[in-house]
């Protein structure tokens, strides 16, 4: 299968965002052929080069998003910032004004006007209109920077029914919006959209590693060639846009217009994507809020390398990695959002109950001046709260709270940090996907964490959760665990089992593998089959393959859905039936294998230039059965968590606390967990 991996400021670059994940994905799926289409964010990023690419990456095409790509020499267009090949003629200019005006109008349209669906359609049509213009004329950059564009923007802003903020836009706002739009729409001007080898038209699947601008080439590939699009978002791009302070210096009108653009772009990406894979429930909620259909969403947790924690995790608390029974460990980057002050206060409470306990704070080297100041503040507070203490009159004393760094004499490796404690504490006030918590779970350590970000979703009942900013609750939970080694062991083992089930690299790769197969089986690219002379060959594909329906098939159990337009509605209907529950996993495996075989057969046929005879390919059995692969099962997080929790409970005799993700967990969490 040929997969185009679309990244923005990401994969092949050494400083890329999600490069680790992409690298593991590409290396894990070596049977596929990858082409990387990368957009870079800055000149430094390009200068620092790429990471080493495995052989299954056949081609890398890059394009900058950061400066006017003007070629040196004379023939460039006239005007400021003109980067295109040539200026437009009258007809092209009219076409540009029409589409760009439409785009601007869709951006400026208030929520109360024509209705959301109508506006979304207008936005999409304008976007594709611009893309077609760029493809025909070889670029948009000149036109997007020209006075024509600014004038079209102004007209849209002053139109009746536009956003209030847009009405107040002044000339600098308009210019700022035009410049940022030019940057955001730069993927439209690229020469990636061609049918030949190396273009986006020649792949079977586009996988966008993030939303926003990275998904834009995927949108166009879908529009031009019908290539299905898969969007993976570990952090939602729209949210990052808000938090990143894009257009910082610009006024409120410019920011409102840009936010509208990115919102509508996100909605269009979600609408066109065949499947969307958020990295956690938080991303999923944002995607739903931005208009993603629930039926398309499959949560695929990020995978983490479990290997380096295997020794510690398997040895448990008692093996060669002997944990000090009274030691609490905190691991992470030391910054105010982690609320170390709260942790120290909690530890003071713990010391009242358990005078022998110690706290080890293992922090990654802090970056920046503010982080250093915070570390100094925490050290001072620790020294104030806890005086040094010694074994006896003649021994040298030591503080019960120690600040250490990975690589120091006591903690040479990350795994040693977790191994050193019997309880791992996470005290954050703000948290995204808590990596240190997952690592602690891999190490089989009992954890106490605050209820922030994706913590509850990750821990899923295999550790204690307390409300944030509540040192007393944190202390109570820690003391409860410190006093009960058996419970610690049970929770640690359960946590390790859960982490190995959900957060390994292998599950991540396997999930994407089956998602790829499912997408290609469900909506393959329909290409014209050509004969030797290059003329289209009629009847190469029989008409039936465009229909969803029952296919005569040897092995597959379920209904085949071979049609392009098998919408999520059809899928949902099929899934609602009980067939998947009956057929079980063996049928799924057969289905997946069948789908793979079909893909291979098609690829071989295409490679040899032999037109496929009717029926051209094995009916893709990725109907209800195929789509209910293990990934599908993991997608519905709360459901799975219950299952896992129950399994684990049976194994270890823990009274299961079901469904932590589903219901609101308020201040009562600690108490409820305490009863377990």
């Amino acid at each position, binding site marked *: 299968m040929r997969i185009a991996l679309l990244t923005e400021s990401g994969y092949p670059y050494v400083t890329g965002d999600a490069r680790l994940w992409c690298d593991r994905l590409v290396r894990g799926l070596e049977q596929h052929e990858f082409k990387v289409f990368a957009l870079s964010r800055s000149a430094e990023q390009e200068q620092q080069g790429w990471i080493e690419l495995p052989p299954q990456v056949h081609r890398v095409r890059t394009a900058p998003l950061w400066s*006017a790509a*003007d070629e*040196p*020499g*004379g023939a*460039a267009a*006239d*005007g*400021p*910032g*003109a980067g295109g090949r040539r200026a437009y003629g009258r007809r092209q200019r009219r076409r540009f004004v029409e589409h760009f005006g439409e785009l601007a109008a869709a951006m400026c349209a208030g929520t109360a006007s024509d209705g959301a669906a109508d506006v979304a359609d207008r936005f999409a049509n304008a976007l594709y209109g611009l893309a077609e213009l760029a493809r025909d004329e070889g670029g948009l950059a000149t036109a997007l*920077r*020209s*006075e024509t*564009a*600014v*004038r079209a923007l*102004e007209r849209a802003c*002053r139109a009746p029914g536009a956003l209030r*903020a847009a009405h*107040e836009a*002044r*000339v*600098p706002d*308009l*210019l700022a919006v*035009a*410049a940022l739009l030019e940057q955001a729409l730069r993927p439209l001007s690229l020469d990636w959209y061609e049918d030949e080898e190396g273009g986006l038209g020649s792949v079977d699947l586009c996988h966008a590693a993030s939303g926003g601008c990275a998904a834009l080439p995927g949108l166009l590939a879908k529009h031009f060639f019908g290539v299905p699009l898969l969007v993976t978002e570990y952090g939602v791009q*729209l*949210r990052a846009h*808000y*938090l990143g302070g894009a257009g910082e*210096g610009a*006024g*409120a*009108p410019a*920011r*409102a217009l840009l*936010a*509208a653009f990115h*919102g509508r772009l996100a909605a269009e990406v979600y609408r066109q994507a065949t499947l969307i894979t958020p990295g956690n429930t*938080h991303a999923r*909620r944002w995607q739903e*809020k931005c208009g993603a259909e629930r039926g398309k969403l499959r949560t695929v947790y990020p995978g983490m390398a479990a290997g380096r924690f295997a020794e510690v995790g398997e040895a448990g608390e008692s093996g060669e990695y002997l944990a000090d029974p009274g030691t609490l460990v905190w691991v992470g980057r030391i910054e105010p*959002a982690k609320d170390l002050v709260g942790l120290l206060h909690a530890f003071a409470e713990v010391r009242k109950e358990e005078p022998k306990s110690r706290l080890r704070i293992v922090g990654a080297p802090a970056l920046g001046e503010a982080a250093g100041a915070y570390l100094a503040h925490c050290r001072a507070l620790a020294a104030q709260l806890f005086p040094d203490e010694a074994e006896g009159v003649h021994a040298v004393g030591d503080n019960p709270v120690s600040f250490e760094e990975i690589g120091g004499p006591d903690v040479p490796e990350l795994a040693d940090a977790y191994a050193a404690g019997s309880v791992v504490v996470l005290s954050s*006030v*703000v948290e995204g996907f808590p990596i240190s918590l997952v690592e602690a779970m891999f190490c089989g350590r009992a954890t106490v964490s605050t*209820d*922030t*970000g994706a913590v509850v979703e990750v821990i899923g009942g295999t550790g204690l959760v307390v409300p*944030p900013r509540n040192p007393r609750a944190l202390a109570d939970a820690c003391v409860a665990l410190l006093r009960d080694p058996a419970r610690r062991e049970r929770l640690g083992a359960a946590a390790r089992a859960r982490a190995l089930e959900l957060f390994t690299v292998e599950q991540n790769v396997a999930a994407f593998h089956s998602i790829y197969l499912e997408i290609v089986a469900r909506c393959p690219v329909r290409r014209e089959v050509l004969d030797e002379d290059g003329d289209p060959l009629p009847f190469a594909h029989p008409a039936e393959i465009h229909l969803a329906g029952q296919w005569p098939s040897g092995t597959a159990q379920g209904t085949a859905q071979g049609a392009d337009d098998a919408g999520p509605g059809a899928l949902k209907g099929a899934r609602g039936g009980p067939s998947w529950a009956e057929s079980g996993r063996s049928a799924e495996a057969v289905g997946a294998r069948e789908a793979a075989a079909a893909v291979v057969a098609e690829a071989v046929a295409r490679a040899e230039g032999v037109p496929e005879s009717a029926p051209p390919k094995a009916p893709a059995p990725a109907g209800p059965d195929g789509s209910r692969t293990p990934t599908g099962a993991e997608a519905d997080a709360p459901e799975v968590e219950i299952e896992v929790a129950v399994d684990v409970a049976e194994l270890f005799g823990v009274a299961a606390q079901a469904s932590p993700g589903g219901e*609101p*967990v*308020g*201040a*009562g969490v600690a108490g409820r967990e305490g009863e377990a």
Partner: protein
Amino acid sequence: MSKSRTGVDDTPAAPASPGGWDTRSEEALAAPGPRTGSADGATRKRRGAADPVKALLHRHRELCERAVDPLEIAAGLEAHGVTDRAAARYRHRDVFSLAEEMYARVPRDGARTSSVVAPPEDRPVVESLPAGWALVALLPGIVCAAAVAGYELTAGRGRLTVLVAGALVIAVTLRFALRHGPLRARRRPVSGTRAWSGFLLLYALCGDGLLDGALRGGPDGPWPLDTAALLGLGLAFAPAAWCARLFAVRARRRLAQSRGLAEFAAGARPLLLAVVVLYAAALTGLLVLAGRFLGQQGPPLGAALLGVLLLLARLLTSYGFRRAPALVLGCACAVEGLAVAAAFAARLPGCGFLAVPVDAVGAGAVPVLACGAGAAVLLIRAARTLARASAHAGGTGEPR
């Protein structure tokens, strides 16, 4: 208002408007009971949890006032650690609906939004220039003066050496000064622009004398050079740079103040004209002074028009419009070159008619016509293009 609500009777009437209160907060006031645990009852009493969203609004006031839509507030709240479970404490299903309430409750009037936009004077208006650019702009004048002095003080072979060396030094200085001043081009000018400019300057120096000689059947030996024109033009480089800076700064300020594109264009055109007139006046003054000083007579009209032409060409180039200047400069060169060529070609047998038009206007009128027409064309062009807001949008481009 809150006093009367808590029962202290300082006003007899009930509050006329609900103010910041809505039905949700009324409910919250009526039933402040069971959602907070009994353990932190003291906290509740201390904080007065009647309208918890109000406190939240106060805490995140800046975020809410800055936000352009509810999602931005939601993103900001999440970044401050507010989760869905925290939102439940504010009687909302999730952070999004809490953010919507906050967005709706923030006072949002015209005064606020306009105050958010920083006053234009506070912003860095135009791209910064290398330190001392205003002094660098004086360099070409100084070098020209030195070259002219050398020329006047020497004779014979020494004069030739001074001419060649002077031309080289002036070219290098000019290039340096252009790159380090407000007249720097954001992108490399179209090829030929520099050559045309050099030719026009050369013609201003020696073209009139050559053409005059050719029409009279000469030239016999070295003809007099118009050093006053060269000196005046060199000295006028500094006012040119200052005028360009003035235009950039004023245009940016006007840009920040205008509400619409038409308004900006209406203001920018007179500004451009004023700047060009100012420069023309300064240039004429300098040319006249230089003529007096060097004892050369004759109206400096051709040189003045050449200066205006060069300023407009460079101004357009520096704003990224590169083709029109190259074309117009090329045309002016062609006219002047053709005039000289026609004067010489008229000596061929049977071609005497070629010199008639040049003879009719006179040698001194050729640069006036060529540069005057060119300057007029570029002025019209500049009045159209430099009045566009998009021309002043950049400013981050790298100098070439």
